[in-house]
Structures are given as C-alpha cells and as structure tokens.
C-alpha cells in the first residue's frame, strides 16, 4: 500500500456478502442514492455526562462477585480521519463472557454463563479522545454460518463522531487469533483495511499482577462514501 488514506471504496465491507449468509435477504439490490451532506448530516447528538457513571466502564464490577476470566484493560483514542481527537463522545461496547457466551436469551451456545458478568459497558471519551474499559477477555464461539464456523474473540464497539455521517459500529479483535483467517465477518473487509480492527497488546497499560492491556484506536470518517471512479 502507498502512504496516505486508501481509496474510500475499500474501507467498509459490502452489503452483499456471499460468505456471510445473514446478508442474503438484507442487502439493498438498488444502488445507493447520493445524499449531499446538509445540516442534518453535519450535526450529531451529544449525550452529556449525566447519562454515564464512571462504573459503566468497568465490566468486571457490575455484580456482587468477581467476573470469571482473564482481566483486560482496553484503551485507545477516538480520532477523525485527520488524526484529531474526538472529545466527549459516546463509546458503547458489548461482548461475550470468558467462555464465549453472551448474556442474552437468544444465545443458547452450551457454554457457562457467568452471573457476575453481563458484558456491556459505556463511557465518554476524554478531552484527548481517549477511552478506557476494564473487562474480561471474551471467548470464541460457534455459529451456524457454515459448517464448523467459529467467531474469533471480539468486542463490539459503537461510537459517535461529531456528526451523523461519522456514526460507526465495528468490532475489535485480538492479535494473533487463528480464527481471523476463517471468519467471514472479519474477512468481509479488504485485506488492506481489516487489520485496523485488530487491537495490539500494550505493555504500557498492562497492570502488574492485575490485568493485560490491549490498545485500539478507532478512526471515523469516510464511511458510506460513494466509491469514486478510478
């Protein structure tokens, strides 16, 4: 790859993904219409600190007892495409427990639930765009997309930028996970862009005798941009 931003058409996965079966009846068949960004698209919601409490970012301490599994600290920055921090915006996460089970009634995977772990958190970014969560390393889990299909361990991230066009939901993966090579959701993104969804192990935020650190910057901008010719 050359330096600088890749072609915008390579950024996001397609709506129509033959390998990801759930897309089959849900992708639009007609070409997307062009929406010149007007006032509605160039503004966005601001949620304010009153909705969030500091404990919302600690997923290990939402119940009476200790959550099971490997404690991890996930930090990073929310940035725009020019690398500028996006302050005071909402970051929401959700994930499985250490055994790869979601605390959700529709997840019937026969792995144990953890009554001390729900797997949901949120925070606002700081003035330098940083966020920080203390959680449990999620597990891999089987799904029925194809025979012997397993999702690599991941944390869902939902972020708001400064405006409607910058809204993004993505997934954070873990370095060195062998399941990434077989996962149609991860693989739906171009080879040049998909590794941006993989966090890095971070010794600086790793806390001695307590928790491993993972680092994951989220950069928003360019989403839903109509691919340009050439």
């Amino acid at each position, binding site marked *: 790859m050359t330096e600088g*931003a890749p072609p915008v058409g390579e*950024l*996001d*996965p*397609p*709506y129509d993904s033959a390998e*990801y079966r*759930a*897309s*089959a*009846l*849900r*992708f*639009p*068949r*007609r070409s*997307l*219409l062009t*929406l*010149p*960004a*007007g*006032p*509605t*698209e160039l*503004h*966005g*919601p*601001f949620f*304010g600190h009153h909705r969030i409490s500091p404990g919302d970012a600690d997923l290990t301490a939402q119940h009476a007892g200790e959550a099971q599994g490997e404690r991890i600290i996930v930090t990073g920055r929310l940035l725009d*495409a*020019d*690398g500028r921090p996006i302050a005071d915006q909402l970051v929401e996460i*959700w994930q499985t427990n250490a055994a790869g089970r979601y605390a*959700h009634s*529709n997840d019937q995977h026969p792995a144990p639930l953890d009554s001390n772990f729900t*797997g*949901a958190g*949120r925070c606002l970014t700081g003035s330098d765009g940083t966020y920080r969560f203390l959680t449990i390393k999620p597990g891999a889990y089987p799904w029925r997309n194809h025979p012997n299909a397993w999702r690599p361990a991941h944390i*869902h991230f*939902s972020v708001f930028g400064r405006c*409607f*066009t910058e*809204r993004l*939901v*993505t*997934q954070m993966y873990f370095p060195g996970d062998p399941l990434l090579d077989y996962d149609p*959701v*991860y693989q*739906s*993104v171009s080879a040049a862009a998909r590794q*941006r*969804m993989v966090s890095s192990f971070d010794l600086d935020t790793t806390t001695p005798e307590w928790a491993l650190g993972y680092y994951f*910057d989220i*950069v*928003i901008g360019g*989403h*839903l*941009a*109509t691919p340009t010719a050439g």
Partner: protein
Amino acid sequence: MPVHPTPSQTVGPFFSLGLSWMGAHELVDPSLPGAIVLFGRVLDGAAAPVPDAVIEIFHANPEGRFPRATQDGWTGFGRALTDGDGAYRFVTSKPGALSENEAPHIDISVFARGLLQRLVTRCYFPDEAEANRGDSVLRSIDDEPVRASLLAHREGDGLRFDIRLQGDGETGFFAW
C-alpha cells in the same frame, strides 16, 4: 496527520446487551403538545419481519436547529430496537424546515445482523407536499417509487414509515 479509518462491522444478533440501556425511543414526553409518533416495520427481501434491527433517528428541533446542549435534554437522537414483528416506534417532535430547498426530514440509520455496515435513509412528511416538491434531495431522485419510499404515511394518530431492506418496494438508501 491523516490516519486510516476503521472499517464497519455488523452489530450482530446480541446488540441489545450494549445498546438498549439508553431507552431513547421517546425523544419528547408523549403528552407534549405537537408530539408525533413515528412507527413502522423493518422487512427483509422475503417480506419477513426483521426482529433484530436497531433503528436510530436524528433530526432538527421544531425550529430547524440542532442545539448542542439544552436544559430539557433534547439531543435530536432516538434509538429503538425492533420487536418480534420487526416493529419500531418513536415519539418525537416534528423537525422544522432547514432551508428553502430542504423539507422537514428525519435521518434514519438501520443496523442489523446481516448488515456489515449501516443503511441510511430519510423520512419525509406527508403534510409537507409543497416543501417536499422543493426539496433538493427528493428532486434528485428520478425513480418515483423510490421517492415515494421516503415518505411517511399517516395512520391513526401516527406516521408509518416501513423500511424494506430488499426487493419489492425497496426503500431508498443513501451514501454521501
């Protein structure tokens, strides 16, 4: 320094864990004079309900503005999770017109299992025929059924806006 944008991924089927806390389907008190109900269903390419979608709306206030901080907690943002029938429902205030060539409208994002990135559409109002005729986005759409798919319909006390992801009557979706 330019940095590389992070790609989008699907919300998957278990997003209610992380996204239901906000309870943001009522942007205003339903008893507020002028409150409107915006509701509808999300349907797939087989016309089956999509029971695992997140609908988010964003729009101007009745004055056509986007106040960043208000005493009444107005954000212009709403979020609803579809139920087993693919149905969603919001209570909000009708947005004001933004300019001579922008009719009142609500921007809508659709997230769902099976959607690797969100879909974006716009909802326009049936009682704004004149403003809609002058709306630059509606005017740019040549295909009449597509244009019609962006118009809510009055039904009972509310406004129905169904979202068809694929096939017959497919909703018009946007990129920029």
